[in-house]
Structures are given as structure tokens and as C-alpha cells.
């Protein structure tokens, strides 16, 4: 098969599965009205799949900080930090992240995807092992591949399964990087962190926790699962993203290991990419302050999340195992998921459609992401639409 034939096969598969005239995986958004509403075509829609957990994308503090940085430092840095230097904002945000987690140091990356790529490929290499949860995000899989280390998977959130695989590694467990996520993006469930920390200590491994979906969502000050469980000292490296609760784009890692800083000199996804723009850094710094003080935002987020989860559960939808801002509706077939996704869109609700092989266990998902900026009335409306669609989906 030629290189272009492979792409034709992708096109044929998409055509067979997806409706014509509707760009399911690249929905054209014409106007954005707020953190929760936009226009698709001539229709006003409710965002319910954007991971804007704290609803900060239009926070006046973030907008003002970004505007000022844009005027002061320009539109971009036009290169990597190794080549073009570290702006005061980059350095300040790294200090602020380290301070937020009360850690020795922090590094900022250009995207959350690159944060995982950079950390995993910087920490592990040929001859080492990376032990990952089966439901890990693509950035974790790709970081493993880039590292050249041996990749071993354990069954999702199954600590006995994880320990069994560590035991088989024998002494190699000491050169093993375990990777878990605070909240898993597919099903919205949390890692059993206490057990993972206990086992990684017993086997002298290193633990990296990705708080991409749990930053701002869990813990008193929003640090994530490490704060919710009080286990920050048990985690070696914490990564996360700016593109969810912080409403911009970028990624970070914090650690108490002083060696973290050396990643700047060996990690390709950090070295060979342009650094975040001044406006991005400025809005993220403002958002981090709001997140840290965002007790009320978290209360509202969890109220909305519990309201919608309980409603969908009562309606008989098969959901992820834990209530939270990521609410995954698990469908038996891609056709069923597509029908639900399209029905929601026809009622002005935009959610995420996840089809095999991206969905776990060969299922298909219709994933909702709840925001603190949603209102209780909007959650009611979403619940009513799910109720209306239920008969036609499961008939």
C-alpha cells in the first residue's frame, strides 16, 4: 500500500462511519460568545465538551493580562528557550507553579502534550521500563515511544495488576517509571493514588502523575489528586496542562527532585519547539491565581457535575464509574454513539464523540465536560434532552 493509499483508506473508513456534511471531528465554530456558548452554522450551541472546567477563558483578569503582555512583548517568542532565551514571564510562571505545589522547581512546556512527551522521554531511555495504565492518554503512549524504554501496560486502575507487573520486572523495577493520571480523560475516574504510591515505594520505582484533568478540579486549592489525597510527597513528578482549567495552552511539570532542571538540556520536546507566547504565559499566570483562590468555582463545578451525573444515571445511561466533571456515556456501538451525539447537537448541545480505537474496550463514548460556568438551568436542559433522546437511542 502506498503512502497516499493509506490516507485514502482513512477517508473511506470515515465516510463509511460518519454522516456526510457534518465534520464530527473538527466542528466549525463560527463565533464564541462565552465560556459556555458559541455559534455553529446559524445555531447557538452550548459547549459541553471543552474541558473549560473553571470557565476562565473569558475571565477579565486573564484577558487583561494577555492584552498587556501582547502590547509589551509582542505576539510570539519565535523560537525555543534554549536559542531565544527565557522571558521574565516564563521564569515567573515556573516559580509560581513550584510555589503553588510547594515543590523545589517547575518547568513550563509549550503544550500539555509536550509536557508528557518531554518528561517521559527525558526520564526514561533504552534499558529502562515505563509502566503505564491501559487507559493512558496518547501523550503518555507517545512519550514512551519517544523514550525508547520498554513499555508495559497494566489494567486500568487495577493496582494488584500493576504490582504483579512490577514484581515480574525484578530488580528492573528500580529503573521503572510508573505513569498514572489524576482523572482519566476517557471515563472520568480517579487513580487509586494511595495504593499506587505504596507500591511504587515498595519497589523503589519513580512515579509521574498527570493532573491534566484534575488540576483546578480536585483539592482545596485545586492542585489536583495529590492535594485531594494528601499524597504530594509520594509523587515524584507532577505534570499538567494549561488548556483545561487554566483556559489557555501549555503544560508544566513540578518536582522536589533537583534533577528536574536537567531535563531542559536533554529533553527534545522542550528543546526543539518555540516557547509559549507572552500573552499565553500572562493569561495562565492570572488564571493560576484564580484557580488557587477558586473555592467557589470548584464548589459550582462539582454541584453541576453531580447534578448531571445523577440525572443521566437515573435515566439509565451507562456512565463512567465516578461522578466528576468528565461524564462519559458508554455506548455499545459507534452508530449508537453517533446517533446520541447528533441528537444532542440538533438540540444545541455540543459534546465529544469518541469512537474505537480511541474509546476503551472497543466501546464508543459520548463525553460531556462540565464547567463551573454552566448554570443549573443548563444542566437541567441537558438532562431533559438526554431523556428525550433515550428512547430512540436504545430502541
Amino acid at each position, binding site marked *: 500500500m502506498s503512502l497516499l493509499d493509506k490516507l485514502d483508506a482513512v477517508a473511506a473508513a470515515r465516510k463509511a462511519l460518519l454522516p456526510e456534511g457534518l465534520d464530527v471531528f473538527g466542528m466549525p465554530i463560527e463565533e464564541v460568545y462565552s465560556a459556555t456558548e458559541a455559534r455553529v452554522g446559524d445555531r447557538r450551541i452550548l459547549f459541553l465538551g471543552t474541558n473549560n472546567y473553571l470557565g476562565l477563558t473569558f475571565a477579565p483578569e486573564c484577558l487583561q493580562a494577555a492584552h498587556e503582555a501582547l502590547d509589551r512583548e509582542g505576539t510570539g517568542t519565535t523560537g525555543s528557550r534554549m536559542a531565544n532565551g527565557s522571558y521574565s514571564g516564563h521564569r515567573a510562571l515556573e516559580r509560581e507553579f513550584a510555589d503553588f505545589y510547594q515543590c523545589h522547581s517547575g518547568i513550563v512546556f509549550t503544550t500539555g502534550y509536550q509536557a508528557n512527551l518531554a518528561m517521559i522521554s527525558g526520564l526514561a531511555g533504552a534499558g529502562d*521500563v515505563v509502566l503505564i495504565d*491501559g487507559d493512558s492518554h496518547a501523550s503518555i503512549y507517545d512519550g*514512551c*515511544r519517544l523514550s525508547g524504554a*520498554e*513499555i*508495559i*501496560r*497494566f*489494567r486500568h486502575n487495577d493496582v494488584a*495488576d500493576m504490582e*504483579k*507487573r512490577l514484581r*515480574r*520486572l525484578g530488580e528492573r523495577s528500580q529503573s521503572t517509571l510508573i505513569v498514572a493520571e489524576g482523572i482519566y480523560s476517557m471515563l472520568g475516574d480517579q487513580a487509586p493514588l494511595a495504593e499506587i504510591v505504596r507500591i511504587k515505594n515498595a519497589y523503589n520505582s519513580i512515579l509521574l502523575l498527570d493532573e491534566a484533568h484534575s488540576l483546578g478540579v480536585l483539592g482545596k486549592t485545586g492542585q489536583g489528586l495529590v492535594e485531594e489525597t494528601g499524597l504530594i510527597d509520594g509523587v515524584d513528578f507532577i505534570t499538567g496542562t494549561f488548556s483545561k482549567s487554566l483556559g489557555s495552552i501549555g503544560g508544566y511539570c513540578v518536582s522536589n527532585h533537583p534533577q528536574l532542571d536537567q531535563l531542559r538540556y536533554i529533553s527534545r520536546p522542550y528543546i526543539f519547539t518555540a516557547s509559549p507566547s507572552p500573552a499565553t504565559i500572562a493569561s495562565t499566570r492570572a488564571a493560576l491565581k484564580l484557580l488557587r483562590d477558586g473555592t467557589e468555582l470548584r464548589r459550582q463545578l462539582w454541584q453541576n457535575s453531580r447534578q448531571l451525573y445523577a440525572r443521566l444515571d437515573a435515566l439509565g445511561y451507562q456512565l463512567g464509574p465516578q461522578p466528576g466533571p468528565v461524564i462519559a456515556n458508554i455506548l455499545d456501538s459507534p452508530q449508537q454513539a453517533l446517533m446520541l451525539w447528533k441528537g444532542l447537537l440538533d438540540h444545541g448541545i455540543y459534546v465529544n464523540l469518541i469512537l*474505537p*480505537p480511541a474509546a476503551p474496550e*472497543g466501546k464508543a463514548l459520548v463525553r460531556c465536560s462540565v464547567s463551573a460556568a454552566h448554570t443549573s438551568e443548563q444542566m437541567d436542559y441537558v438532562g431533559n434532552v438526554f431523556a428525550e433522546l433515550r428512547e430512540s437511542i436504545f430502541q
Partner: protein
Amino acid sequence: MSTDYSDILSRLCFHLKQFSSPDVVIVPETDLINELAIDSVKLLNLVMEIEDEFDISVPLNALADVQTVHDLANLIHHIKSAK
């Protein structure tokens, strides 16, 4: 190939039966992807089952050259022999 290989092959074939219809005969030359329709995700899950069945670690990186049942049995044999 040693008896170990034969034993591995027979246990592996028994295991692979769950991925195929009853009338499919699995032989060493059977192509995992094209004949048993084991896609990338199924293969990842199969690896975990194989690890447990044979009490070994099978790095995902090692699957790049695996296409047939024989390739997989050979990989398992190689890993078990190196233990």
C-alpha cells in the same frame, strides 16, 4: 524449535480462539491482524493476557515485528528463555 516452543504455541492458539469464530483453524502462519482481526487495541489487551498466562513481561515495543501466530509464539519463547 524446542518442546517449549510447541507448548507455548499450543497454549497461545488456545488463547487466540477467543478472538476468532469457531470455524477458523489457527496455525502458526495465521496472520493476527488480517485473519483473526486483532486490531491494535485488541493486541494490547492480548499482550496483558499473554503476560499473565506465561508469567513474563512483554514490552509493547517488541510487537513491531509480530505479524503471525508463529511470530508471537517465538517472541514469548524468546522472552521465557531469557528469564
